């Protein structure tokens, strides 16, 4: 198959690559860029474990083809901690006991990040809608909602 050239920014790094156009963004991140923090739970857009930010919007990386990310900016879980400083959301996930097995956690955090970027003061209902595409089998979600609430700007 003919490869295509794509240019994009991943976690602030310019990237230019020749890739197979059937490759998904998830495969690009995990297998080519070795950014394995983004997880794969279903490969069909049902679980949200693969959520990353694409131009500031949360997307399921397993559903996005590489051709679609040309010229865009991707942020993954690996870039949430900046200069050894945890993001407020990350800190809040620890403090609110919102992490158990951790497999949904990167996706949850990225969905929550996208939500707070768009809406810095979400209500509980808005938080739930923002995270409605992310499955967690461990926590029962209560502590995750609390964790996002704990990271809201106005509460600091």
């Amino acid at each position, binding site marked *: 198959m003919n490869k295509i050239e794509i240019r994009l920014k991943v976690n602030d790094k310019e990237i230019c690559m020749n890739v197979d156009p059937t490759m998904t963004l998830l495969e690009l991140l995990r297998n080519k860029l070795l950014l*394995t923090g983004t997880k794969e739970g279903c490969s*069909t857009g049902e*679980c949200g474990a693969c959520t990353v930010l694409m131009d500031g919007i949360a997307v399921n990386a397993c559903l996005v083809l590489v051709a679609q990310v040309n010229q865009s900016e991707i942020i993954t*879980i690996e870039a*949430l901690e900046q200069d050894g400083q945890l993001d407020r959301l990350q800190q809040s996930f620890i403090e609110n006991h919102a992490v158990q097995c*951790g*497999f949904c956690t990167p996706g949850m955090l990225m969905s929550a990040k996208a939500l707070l970027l768009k809406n810095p003061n979400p209500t509980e209902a808005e938080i739930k809608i923002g*995270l409605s595409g992310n499955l967690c089998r461990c926590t029962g979600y*209560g502590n995750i*909602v609390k964790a996002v609430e704990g990271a809201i700007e106005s509460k600091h």
Partner: protein
Amino acid sequence: MAKRKSVDRQDAYAKITGKAKYVNDLFFPGMLYVQTVRIPVAHARIKKIDGTEALQLNGVVGVFTAQDVPGINQRPKDRPVLAAHETKYAGDGVAIVVAETKEQAILGAKLVRIDFEELPYVMNPEDALKEGAPILHGETNFAASHQAIKGNVEAGFVEADLIIEREYTTQRAMHSAIEPDGAIAIPEANGILLYCPGKGPFNIKRAVASHCGLHENQVRVIQPALGGVFGGKDSDINVIGARVTMAAMLTNRPCKMIWSREEVLEEGTKRHPFKLHYKVGAKRDGKITAMEINGLADVGAYLTKSAATVWRATVEATGPYNIENIFTRIEGAFTNNTVSDAVRGFGSPQVDFASESLMNELAKELGLDPLKIRRINGFTEGSITATGQKLECVNLMACLDKLEETFPVNKKPSDVPVGKVRGRGISCIFRGEAMGAGFKEKDAAAVNFNVEKDGTIVVYSGITEQGQGGSNVVLQIISETMGVNIENIKMSPLDTAYVIDSGATVGSRGTITSGNAALVAANDAKMRIATVLAEMWKVNPEMIIFLDNRVFIEDQTHCLSFKDAVNLCYTVIPGVYGHGWWSLPPVWWDFDSNSGETYASFNYGACGAEVEIDLVSGKVEVTEVVAIHDVGRIINEEEAKAQIAGGVSMALGLALSETIATKNGRLVTTNFDKYLLQTIMDSPNITAIPLEAQPANNPLGVKGVSESSTATVSPAVFNAIENALGIRLRNLPADLESVLAAIETSERLGYLKGGGIHE
């Protein structure tokens, strides 16, 4: 002891930064990918497997079948690494394709030509036991049978003023850890190194060694981060581990296999569906005089741990009630369904659903309050179970008291929207702790640690961290016993080369066994250090205090930092370490007399649920759950609550939405679009209450926390549905169709549905 503070989890940092490495995050030079080949029918005779075409595909390195399995492919009735002559369910693997890339392996698997003959199949355990049914193993489809008999059930029914009979069914459901199962095998000079996320690393090692013709010392299992278990990553992971190991042995290269979600659902083990028939007799005042239970479980295609699951269900089938006359018999039958095996709760959710639904039905017939009937019959200190076991540390009444206080079951729902009805229901439970007499091995765990010269403590534990926070419990106990900050204590990765076999992390045994072992180890190290210092300081070792990273005697005439104390010890003794073993008291079961000490201890619980039902769609929304669980003593309160809440959430899926469905012997629910887990939108307000009543009979006073909450929710929800609709549902789950069908049969509800007046 003062109440403990909740402690943040040490494993959280790696997980929130994406740095935690799960098995699929690991890559090794020269690694090959392995794909399983299956036959898409429920039952088939394999005539020929031809890999020629697949082998011609670019990148395909090998195609292997049962003939290539280096050791024992299959033990009688159990799962084979690869089916040799016959597949017994549509998920059975028959071959593996090994290739340079995952895509090539998947493509190659499609090119493996299989000549097979479709055989008649049976998908229902009752049919499986009928004359003429296709037989899966040996002579009969009978897979397991257990009984518990107490008193004289016939005489008990004669005494009764009222007798009712009811039948309940539970569905096939799945663990659904968000991490799909997988493993990597790496050939090494002395055998195989296996990266394998499982709840029983030593079980994996044994199974893989036996399947692959290796000595146990030739298989080393390193556990990567575990993305959820819930009873899974057990039988499946043994099969996966064996497949990648044989591939690695045959190609001499690292081999990786990660199941897709579809494969997890198709081949992976599931929760046993049960059909349970109850007959109960009671006096007018509510006192139960006799209970007769007959049950049948669907074991699926292979045996795995079904006998133990059915046994637990038999032990607990009456619910937590004092009944003089009991007859319980639960059996299991093979079918061509996916394999049934351990899932969080292990038989308890099925029988608790039935017995707790039954209690409400009985209360209704007798005109009694549902809480009252539980108080009249509930276990108290010294009660005797169906198996003749005398109970200690019984906290059922404490749980019911707490339930009454936090969840008034008779509270009238207010502000009910038009077209909807609300109801409230309760349930309770007693549940055997740890492995119990259903398993032969000694129920024990070890915790060891070294104290480094910089004062840090490096811990080795065989109990797996699978998300439950078990590692942190061990660190916390060492921290509080040694007076060392938890930041200075590190859990080592679980590697069978270094840790001691501590059994599988199952049956809610982690905290009981490894928590107490950590206490023994910490006291061992403390004594070692204190002996050295006592000699130098010319004091009694008992006078030495370990607190806040310091070691001192009360009047402070001698005081050292923990680090300096350790360094001093290294000048006198060869090492500073702690070793600790702890095992549960022995239990036993006599299959002839059907009696024994089934479990060393039991935990108790009570649950309340409120539902709101949409009369037009039949949708049941759970608006509130209160889950109270007797945990003996709390180690980490927020984490204990989180365990309970997680169990509740999983149980809500069982109550309302999750069903593994098949059609013509094949799975219909192949991904999360059809197998519906609870989402954040469904999640109700959950009040999780870990209760400290009487402590358990072990040094830490702890009981298990992870499973009982998975059992109590579905009966509470069904009792609430009955309370709302006036209609009793007896088959799990209460999905849209069954609730709507129930509503449609009711005239009263038809009226309400049209926007009528509320009662």
